């Protein structure tokens, strides 16, 4: 496997401009002769599909939801970062770049991150022009808030529904292209395989989730914008449908998969209430702007929060990280919360929770201000827990939320398979080992609006229109494999439901490969996952047929892939003998319990290559160089 990141030469500030000027172009009249297959309609996929169709390409768009407006980007609450410096507080492209590289614990590519910071400002302009109703000041100008891991206010927001409003912006842009006849959306359609002919991505195989029909789509390029794999933990803040299938199928067809062990555990989710629970609900990180995080100072203290006097509370983030306090980055806040709970100072049922208290903010600013800032989040919390956060502090606990790992891509966002592009959360590129708050929306839209539309043209211009039809032998073969797999899942006829396997896998991964990991716990994972997978293929029961809407069958296919992918995740976590960002190995910590990175041996991207069903995957390394943000121990103290 060749890992050429194709980072342009020259000073970092000029790389992207120079690269754009050197990329080959497709003649406007020829663009319609190229078909691009876009899988996924979140912020990355939706914005890319709309932008490519505007350019004149022929775009076929696929999503498993019933409409392109529902992808999980919609659930992002807090905001989107951009280096606009509207607040005059010293922000700049350089500072956003610096914060993101440092926040990612020095495991991202400098050149990619710099470009991300550069295009961030254009994203805001684009979204405003589309009619995204960002929060505004009385003077009519855009409002900003601060967010975890940053000391400037660079986050733009639309109440607590920023992801929704940005997604509706690109959904509407896509709708306009559908009306213009340049894009077609295929909802309730799931990609189940990638077709590679002569080393190039030439199409995909999909299943129509309503009719069960399996069919092939030929194209000149395939773009995966299929999100992250947090649902490998079963309980996560992701939507129920989020899955690893698209990128896993691509991996099995030869695409390198990078850093799967970099998973983000978000500190502010509503704690799990019972075994029946189907998902965890996030409370926006923006709440940490005004809420103070604390637990009782004394272990085993079961008094009501109101009965615990000020002197007996431990505001542990403010105590441990005075410079950033409640706004320290996610990985650090999550581990601190786990630590105080492990000390038997956790609150709520099961002792797995910490308080997020708005008492002081309400006293300082008044209830009306807090209501305007967070009203919908407070409502959501009350709906789920039955408790009123204006009166009693919220309880929060960390939960799987985002995955920094994903398919390896070069500077052009192309995977190791020519013609296969990967954008948004599905790729590995910009967040290193930890993502900062309000940066996921920024990256998804940067990839979709401002990077892919330039870089994909270079590939298409070089390759020329594909002449491989959808009835080519490679398509027929892939289609037969997909159909065979559906039949196999239906034919097992065992005793256990799909969910029971998913829950078992999730518990294993959370306990042994979650917020902290050790060689012993990871070896246990590597032993138990294959056993569970074998049980799955022997004892699974999926009722109904394959030629109708069958939600159990859909889930079964996704869980089957999670059961394979989980092993690679654990393997990657085992080989990375260091703690960095969201990856915390118990063996590698300082005496104070902080992460200890190993830049000598692990300052690289780990890229896994599939070697066939019976051989272990092979790992390759892409070394990382830091010329602009000197390698340093991350400190938020």
């Amino acid at each position, binding site marked *: 496997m060749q890992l050429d990141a194709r980072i342009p030469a020259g000073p970092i500030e000029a790389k992207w401009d120079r690269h754009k000027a050197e990329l080959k172009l497709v003649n406007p009249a020829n663009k319609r002769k190229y078909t691009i297959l876009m899988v996924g309609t979140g912020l990355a996929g939706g*914005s890319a599909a*709309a*932008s490519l169709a*505007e350019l004149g390409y022929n775009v076929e768009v696929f999503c498993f939801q*019933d*409409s*392109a*407006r*529902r992808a*999980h980007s*919609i659930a992002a609450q807090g905001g989107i970062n951009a280096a*606009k410096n509207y607040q005059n507080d010293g922000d700049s492209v350089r500072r956003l770049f610096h914060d993101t590289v440092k926040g990612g614990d020095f495991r991202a590519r400098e050149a990619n991150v710099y470009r991300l910071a550069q295009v961030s400002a254009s994203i*805001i*302009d*684009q*979204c*405003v*022009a*589309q*009619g995204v*109703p*960002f*929060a*505004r000041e009385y003077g009519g*100008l*855009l409002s900003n808030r601060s967010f975890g891991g940053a000391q400037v206010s660079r986050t733009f927001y*639309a109440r607590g*529904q920023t992801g929704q*409003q940005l997604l*509706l912006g690109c959904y*509407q842009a896509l*709708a*306009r292209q559908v*009306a213009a006849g340049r894009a077609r959306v295929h909802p309730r359609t799931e990609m189940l395989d990638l077709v590679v002919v002569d080393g190039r991505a030439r199409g995909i195989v999909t299943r129509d989730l*309503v009719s069960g029909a399996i069919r092939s789509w030929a194209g000149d390029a395939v773009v995966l914008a299929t999100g992250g794999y947090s649902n490998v933990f079963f309980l996560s*803040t992701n*939507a*129920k*449908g989020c899955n690893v299938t698209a990128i896993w199928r691509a991996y099995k067809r030869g695409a390198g998969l990078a850093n799967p062990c970099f998973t983000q555990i978000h500190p502010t989710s509503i704690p799990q*209430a*019972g075994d*029946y629970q*189907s*998902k965890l*609900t996030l409370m926006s990180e923006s709440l940490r702007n005004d809420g103070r995080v604390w637990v009782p100072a004394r272990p085993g203290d079961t008094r009501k929060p109101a009965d615990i006097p000020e002197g007996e509370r431990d505001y542990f983030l403010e105590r441990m990280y005075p410079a950033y306090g409640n706004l320290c980055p996610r990985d650090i806040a999550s581990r601190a919360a786990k630590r105080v709970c492990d000390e038997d100072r956790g609150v709520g049922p099961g002792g797995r929770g910490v308080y997020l208290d708005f008492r002081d903010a309400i006293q300082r600013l008044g209830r009306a201000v807090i209501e305007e800032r967070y009203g919908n989040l407070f*409502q*959501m919390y009350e*709906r*789920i827990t*039955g408790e009123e956060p204006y009166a009693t502090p919220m309880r929060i606990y960390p939960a799987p939320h985002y995955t920094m790992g994903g398919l390896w891509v070069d500077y052009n966002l192309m995977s190791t398979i020519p013609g296969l592009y990967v954008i948004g959360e599905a790729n590995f590129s910009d967040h290193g080992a930890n993502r900062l708050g309000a940066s996921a929306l920024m990256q998804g839209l940067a990839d979709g*609006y*401002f990077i892919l539309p330039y870089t994909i043209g270079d590939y298409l211009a070089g390759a020329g229109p594909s002449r491989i039809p959808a009835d080519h032998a490679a398509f027929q073969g892939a289609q037969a494999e997909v159909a065979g797999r559906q039949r196999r899942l239906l034919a097992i006829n065992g005793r256990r*439901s799909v*969910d029971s396997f998913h829950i078992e896998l999730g518990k294993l991964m959370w306990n042994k490969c979650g917020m902290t990991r050790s060689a012993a716990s990871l070896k246990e994972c590597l032993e138990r996952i294959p056993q569970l997978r074998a049980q799955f293929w022997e004892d699974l*029961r999926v*009722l109904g047929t394959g030629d*109708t*809407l069958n*939600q*159990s069958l859909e889930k079964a296919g996704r869980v089957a892939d999670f059961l394979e992918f989980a092993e690679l995740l654990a393997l990657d976590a085992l080989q990375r003998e260091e703690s960095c960002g969201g990856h915390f190995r118990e063996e590698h910590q300082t005496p104070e319990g902080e992460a200890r990175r190993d830049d000598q041996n692990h300052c690289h991207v780990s890229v896994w290559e599939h070697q066939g069903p019976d051989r272990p995957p092979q790992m390759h390394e892409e070394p990382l160089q830091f010329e602009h943000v000197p390698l340093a121990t991350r400190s938020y103290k």
Partner: protein
Amino acid sequence: MDFTLHVWRQAGPDQPGHMELYQARDISPDMSFLEMLDLVNEDLEKQGIEPIAFDHDCREGICGMCSLVINGVAHGQQPATTTCQLHMRHFRDKDSIYIEPWRAAAFPVVKDLVVDRSAFDRVIEAGGFISVNTGSAQDGNCLPVPKDAADTAMDAAACIGCGACVAACPNGSSMLFVAAKVAHLAHLPQGQPEKRRRVLAMVEQMDREGFGHCTNHYECEAVCPKEISRQFIAEMNREYLKAGLQAH
């Protein structure tokens, strides 16, 4: 808690449907409505009965995918709450609960409780956007937007496109959905150039899809999980009238 469920089962769009009786046992009051259904489905599978199909995804009240009529009310009795955010603590032990799909001519049933809402996408495609290509935008602060206009636009834009408004309306009208998008864009300066064309095209598509007309029942507003105001319907009617007069 235990419940008796009456659930609409329908094998496909052209098959007749019927209510089926199921028992939900040992339900925790802290469960969401969909978690209760997960448990029932788990039970049904054990008995060899195909699980109940229902739409859902984010389970945090924002994606707009979940869509159940619960005891005759779209998304259930709890105000400003989607089905996925409705919790069982709002029901009484031993209650009978009736669960049906959205019922509207423009939303044909796909299977059981799943309906086809693609008509909404086609209404947006007709004009629910601002025509601006990627890359052609000016600086975001070049055009100040008065705070109250931005706030009103956001009130309307909060619509999640779930379709509860249609399900609740005796006429199967989608006026609240369409009006929310018309108002969102009409309140912003960026939406002005296409204002007339937009409202005419969206209303025309809405009629073509077979949605009914608004006769001021306001059932839509009552069930809307995002509390979109019926006032936007009045605004849309005004915009439509103005646009129609100006067009001729």
